[in-house]
């Protein structure tokens, strides 16, 4: 039991329908801490992904195509990290037509590490990666897709809540670390929403 490239495509199609509703919310969160474009950027990335037709059934090839499409659609911090995550997952899943649900956790952990290396952040800096770290931990060894979605959502939400009152230490929000206390990091918020949308299926 696991997911195929078809499942990834379906999740993306769902996001493409739902994300526009969140665009301005995410922009507003980013406007408080950064430059107000997280939502617009994500909506553009998702709509680019939605028009990708992955070649064949190779999950790795699908991730690779999504990574390239993301990298074409934006050069923003978050977008570039997302592209990095896709490309990292592509390497680990190359040549496989199905990936077990229980592999999601290590795939996320891998992606997290690649993004930490690429972006120069550390865990604890209050970024999307702290959310991802929590999700990777919470989904370890979970084999049921429904339970997986629930744990992931709970973990992402927990990370958002528990980091809210901490200062941002990297990204645009680093500039006024103390001023960022009490505010949601837009990347973490986006992660929560994305996981919630995918979990709704």
């Amino acid at each position: 039991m696991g997911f195929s490239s078809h499942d990834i495509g379906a999740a993306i199609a769902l996001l493409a329908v739902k994300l526009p509703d969140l665009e301005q919310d995410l922009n507003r969160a980013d406007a408080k801490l950064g430059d107000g474009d997280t939502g617009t950027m994500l909506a553009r990335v998702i709509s680019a992904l939605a028009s990708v037709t992955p070649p064949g059934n190779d999950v790795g090839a699908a991730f690779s195509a999504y990574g390239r499409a993301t990298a074409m659609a934006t050069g923003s911090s978050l977008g570039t990290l997302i592209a990095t995550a896709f490309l990292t997952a592509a390497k680990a899943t190359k040549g496989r037509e199905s990936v077990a649900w229980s592999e999601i956790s290590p795939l996320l952990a891998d992606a997290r590490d690649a993004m930490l290396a690429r972006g120069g952040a550390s865990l604890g800096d209050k970024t999307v990666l702290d959310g991802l770290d929590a999700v990777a931990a919470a989904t370890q060894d979970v084999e049921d897709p429904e339970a997986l979605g629930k744990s992931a959502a709970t973990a992402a939400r927990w990370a958002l809540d528990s980091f809210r009152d901490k200062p941002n230490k990297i990204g645009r929000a680093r500039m006024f670390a103390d001023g960022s206390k009490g505010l949601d990091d837009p990347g973490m918020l986006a992660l929560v929403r994305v996981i919630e949308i995918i979990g709704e299926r």
Partner: protein
Amino acid sequence: MKKLMNTAGGYVDEVLAGLLAANPGMVLAGESGRNVARRAGVKAGTVGIASGGGSGHLPLFVGYVAEGLLSSCAVGNVFEGPNLASCMDAITAADGGKGVLLLFGNYGGDKMNFAMAAEMLAEEGVETRTVLGTDDIASAEPGDKAKRRGVAGIVYAYKIAGAAADAGMDLDEVARIAQKAVDSTRTIGVALTSCQLPGADAPTFEIADDEIEMGMGIHGERGIWRGKMRTASELVAEMIERITAELPLTAGQKISVLVNGLGATPLEELFLVYGETKKRLDALGVEIVLPLVGNYVTSMEMAGVSLSIITLDDELEPLLKAPAQCPFWKV
């Protein structure tokens, strides 16, 4: 906010098409459709300078692709870093075999994409050095320069590094001089009004009719304080005080100064601010070389002004004064 545009999705490419149509010295180079290079190419035997950054700051970044300034420039979406493909195109277009200086602002996406592009092209033997614009004193403490944003002062680094490259200096030397230009430059800006992303349904930030924000970034990132509007004289006094607190100016020191409009500020006000600035700098006894007044680095329809000062020595001054032929800045 009303924008003269067609669709949000087409905005950047349509702007770029118009810019290229009006400026025959610039051409698209590479496959990404988002890299502009000099039509004449890189002068044989010289180091190239590639820059890049988000759209919404014209004439920065892409407007400075010209003789004596940049060799190429990767063009990102509005307020987003340039994507990987455009960074690769920019480096490739700037490579004349003597290596390429990557000179751009200190922002996350920009750094990641240029770093990836440089890594990939290093495998093909392209040598690069990276120098980041970090001139915004409002964005981190002096001890924490690696965290500072790059804003209007980067045009001084463009000009000086561009002259060094055109003069035939080698890559290490061009990078050293670019870094020296950055280290000699400080900027602070004050925003009067907000700006809005194409397609967004609200301005990036709200600001009251009688309020201003000192130290705001060129994407609307938060500044040092927000308060009531003050006179030009008071604002200039504060800005110069903040700059000279970490860039001490003694009598006889040669400097250049850039009074930069953020996009919607009338030229009248920029000259008025320059008058105030000059009065105060004259009182310090410094000598102003090649003062710049105008829109050099903008934030779309944001109103406000930034002040940049660069200290010059015998090495930087002639490079700043060397000829350059950009549609937005001729020396």
